[in-house]
Structures are given as C-alpha cells and as structure tokens.
C-alpha cells in the first residue's frame, strides 16, 4: 500500500488518475482508517491531501466563504467569524464524533465517505454550498446535493477530488441551524438529521428557505417542498404543520440497527420544525 502526500491539486489528480489499483483520498481519515482496519476497503494507494494549500484554507470570496475540504471541525469551530455567519454549518461539523474525531474529521471527508447519515452534509445543502471539484478535466463546480448519488456512490469521476466548498453570500436577516437525533448525547451516527437555512424580509416573513434531511433516504435530501411550506410565512403553527408534512413525505428511510422506518419519519418531521424555529430565531437577531 503506497502513501503519497502531494503539495498541489495537480499532483493529487495525477496520482489518482494514474493509479492502477484502488486509490483513496485521505483527509481526516476518521472514516477511511476505520474501514481499512475492518477490511471493508484495502486501497493500493492513499493520497493525503492535507499538504495542498486550498484544502486547508478558509477565505472570504465574492461575499461568501470558501472552506477547504480538509479543514477540520475543530478548526471551523475556532474560526472567529464563520460561526456568526453560518452557525448551522458549524454546529453540524461539530457533531461529527467526539472531541478527538473533531480534531481530524473534515467537511470533504464527511461528504465523500458517502453516508446518507453524514452530519455536515444536510447543513451544507441547506446553506446552498457548492463543491469545487478538481480532476483530470480541470475544475468544475457542483452543488453539494448533487455530489452524493447513493450510499458510498459519488458523482465524482476517476481522479477527481473535492478541493473546497463555497458558501454563498448571506443577505441580512439570514441564518441556519442543524439538529440531529441520536439515542445518546454524543458519539452516535445520526439516526435522523435536519438542516434549515432561511432569510427574512423587512417584516420578518420568510423570503427564502432551504431544508435538507439526512439518514432518511439513500442519500442526503434537499426537500424543496419543505422550503415552499414555510416561504411567505412567519413559521406560525399552520406553516410548521405544512413543513412537517412535507418532511414526512420526502422520507424513504430504511429499518436498521439505529432506527425503524416509522421512527425516522416521525423524528424527521419534528427535527425539521425545531431546526427551522432555531434558524428563524437566529435570523431575527442578526
């Protein structure tokens, strides 16, 4: 098994595109190393992208923020301004595993692991984040909701890697929130996840919204119907009920060791509502 740590995107792409056997990207490694130890994957080549500047940077760009794919959850939490602009994205990134896992886990890794229950992905989708992919064919932009096709299946071509994410600029009176359900208070994979991002107009009516649900289908879902349910309202009771109904309708969950189908649908609706209320509260105050 070869290990390479290129210092440029081009170097990484060349290694991955030219790899004969199975090649894997290493960012935080908190999923990859577990799968290697459990013989789920046995790569011939590991490409560590943490020495490539773009993957490690957090910069302002076109009024929004560009976050490197290999920036860790702990670093995001300590960033002086990100938490104020995108509290939902940051709290989602910080729910991935323990303090120790936070020291390693990255947004890029969490997305490319391809789990429908990934914690940061619903928040990124709700935020309207766009992934910046670099591969043999050059660079292309892909909304995060289009990156994951199904469990462990990504829209990336051979040799393509996620270099960074762009969070769009935020109009005033905007905010976001992310909640997940786990049986314990920490350390579990999300049984259900709900990310909501919204903006208010001058008299506190929701003018724009995006709702995303995790662990309720073969991939993390963007749920346009749920957004429609609350746009134009102040998230009063009827709007909340419409939001819950839309969230339930979108769910295609499975029964597994973490939760039953019925449980996931019920809790998805509850978390979508609670998450929207938090986002609304935050939007009013900034």
């Amino acid at each position, binding site marked *: *098994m*070869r*290990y390479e*740590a290129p210092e440029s995107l081009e170097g990484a792409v060349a290694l991955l595109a030219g790899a004969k056997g199975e090649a894997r990207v*290493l960012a*935080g*490694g*908190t999923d990859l*190393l*577990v799968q*290697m*130890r*459990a013989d789920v994957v046995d790569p011939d080549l*590991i490409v*560590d992208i*943490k020495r490539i500047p773009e993957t490690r940077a957090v910069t302002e760009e076109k009024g929004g923020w560009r976050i490197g794919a290999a920036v*860790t959850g*702990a670093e995001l939490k300590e960033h002086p301004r990100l938490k104020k602009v995108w509290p939902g994205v940051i709290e989602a990134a910080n729910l991935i*595993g*323990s*303090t*120790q*896992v936070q*020291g*390693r886990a990255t947004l890029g890794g969490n997305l490319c692991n391809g789990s429908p229950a990934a914690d940061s992905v619903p928040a990124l989708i709700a935020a309207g984040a766009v992934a910046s992919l670099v591969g043999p064919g050059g660079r292309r932009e892909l909304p995060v909701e289009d990156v994951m096709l199904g469990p462990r299946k990504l829209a990336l071509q051979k040799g393509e890697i996620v270099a960074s994410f762009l969070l769009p600029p935020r109009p005033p009176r905007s905010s976001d929130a992310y909640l997940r359900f786990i049986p314990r*208070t*920490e*350390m579990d994979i999300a049984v259900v996840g709900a990310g909501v991002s919204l903006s208010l107009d001058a008299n506190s009516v929701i003018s724009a919204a995006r709702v995303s649900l995790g662990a309720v289908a073969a991939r993390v879902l963007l749920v346009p119907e749920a957004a429609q349910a609350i746009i134009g309202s102040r998230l009063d009771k009827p709007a909340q009920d419409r939001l819950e109904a839309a969230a339930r309708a979108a769910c295609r969950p499975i029964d597994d060791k973490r939760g039953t189908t019925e449980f996931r649908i019920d809790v998805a609706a509850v978390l979508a509502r609670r998450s929207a209320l938090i986002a609304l509260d935050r939007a009013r105050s900034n």
Partner: protein
Amino acid sequence: MAKHHIEATVNGDAVEFLCETEETLLDVLRDTLNLTGSKEGCASGDCGACSVMLDGRLVCSCLVLGCEISGRKVETIEGMAKGDSLHPLQQRFLEAAALQCGICTPGVLVASKALLEKNPDPSEHEVRFWLAGNLCRCTGYDKIVTAVMDTAAAMRKG
C-alpha cells in the same frame, strides 16, 4: 512495498522510525517506540483510550497513520508529568479516586489537560461533552468530572 522513514518529535524527544503505510500512530507508539501508555480499546475512534496530542490538537492516535506525523509533534500520557512532579490532574485523579481499573485514565488525562489549556474554567456540561469521546465503564464519570473541575479551580488559584 518499502517502509516509510519518519522523523518526528514525541514528548519533546526526536524520534526516527520505519513504518508500513497501514500502521497507525497508535501501532507505532506502542509496538515501535514502546510507549504503551496509550491504549487500544477499539481501533475505531469510539473509545478515546488512545488519545494523544498531535501538534497541539487532541486526536485518537488509532485514526492517524504513522507516516502522517513526519515532522510533527506528538504528546502522550508519558510526557504529561514534568520532571518528578505529576501534573495537577494526575495528582488530583489519585487523590479523588477518579480511576478504578485505569485503562481509560491515560486517554482521559490527555483529553482533560487539552481542555484546561483551552478553557481554564469549564462548567460540568463543558467537561462532560469534551470527554464524551473517552469511554469509562468503571467509574460512571462522576469522580472524573469532579476531579477535572477541582483541578481547574486549583490551577486558576495558581
């Protein structure tokens, strides 16, 4: 496949070793550098018994590859006491019986030290959520959390 030749710093000492790609930092610490203070409870980042500091960041050493630490700084439980005086946390854990079997203690101490360096006055809630990645099956956590908060108070007084 040829092994990697790695140079790094562990507990302030320069170290040099060879390792296979799939060897984790925990394997290197325990089997190559003979620092058996960090323990393997699960090898999947779920128990925290292998917690170390990597360039000042608290991580599970079972989720880091040995070849990743080239040129970097690692601190393990063996580096926590300074000279012949124990770190205040180590001393307090003994006085307060904040360990029983002790297999989780190295990881808990490394994690607690990292917390106090970041937050000298943590609330019970903050201590419990910071240590949520360090499983303990003997103590029920009570005496551990109490010992960390008492040590924080004592250190604040100087």
